[in-house]
């Protein structure tokens, strides 16, 4: 059952206020994934164990010099259809939330599952994301 929208709203805003596009439907996800270039897709979550660090980590990483051309987010446990559609682009990767997927066009090039977020701080997570952005989103890599 989806969470109370009032509970989720601040967690949505945490990312959307940083310019991450909210993808509410499967059609939104498909349209996002059809865009050419590099894309970060964040599976947001209520989970305090990991999402509390995931969102600040993403925001911090997106301030770097090299960033994906597009950044979008779905909310697990809330936007069920959009989340299922997003996960369909992750190939054989088991579902986890929060999680982050970096694509180069349609190819998944870096994935951060929930267990890689647990127990980390925002800076540490951002450091990993920035490394992936530098590798895949720098002008020479596009």
């Amino acid at each position, binding site marked *: 059952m989806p969470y109370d929208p009032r509970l989720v709203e601040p967690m949505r805003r945490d990312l959307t206020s940083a310019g991450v596009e909210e993808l509410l439907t499967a059609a939104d996800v498909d349209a996002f994934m059809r865009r050419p270039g590099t894309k970060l897709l964040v599976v947001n979550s209520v*989970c*305090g*164990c*990991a999402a509390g660090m995931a969102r600040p980590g993403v925001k911090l990483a997106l301030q770097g010099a090299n960033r994906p051309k597009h950044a979008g987010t779905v909310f697990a446990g809330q936007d069920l259809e959009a989340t299922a559609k997003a996960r369909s682009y992750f190939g*054989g*990767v*088991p*579902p*986890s939330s929060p999680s982050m997927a970096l694509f180069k066009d349609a190819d998944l090039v870096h*994935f951060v*599952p*929930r*267990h*890689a*977020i*647990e*127990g*980390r*701080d925002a800076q*540490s997570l951002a450091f990993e994301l920035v490394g992936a952005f530098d590798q895949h989103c720098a002008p020479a890599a596009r």
Partner: protein
Amino acid sequence: MPPVGTFHHDKGALHGITVVVRTADGGIWIGRCDTIDAAGVHLLDADRHEAAPGAPSGEAWLAQAAAYGVWPRHPHVLVPAAGVSNVERLGTLRK
């Protein structure tokens, strides 16, 4: 790095954390730890390594799990305390 744990202070330091549970008979379970008590390790959304001809070795299965996670094939599992030889965070195994 902040201490591992969650806001559920009555649940223990590994509550909500994805862990690898190794058992004395060579078994490997991976799941989200709910609690650890006298009965054993209670895991949610867990999977276990199945040793079978043609199946990946335990270490290969662990490496794959460390990179991407596991499928939640078992919604709730109790790994009996008597058989548990080690519990560690899956995140520490990620390269």
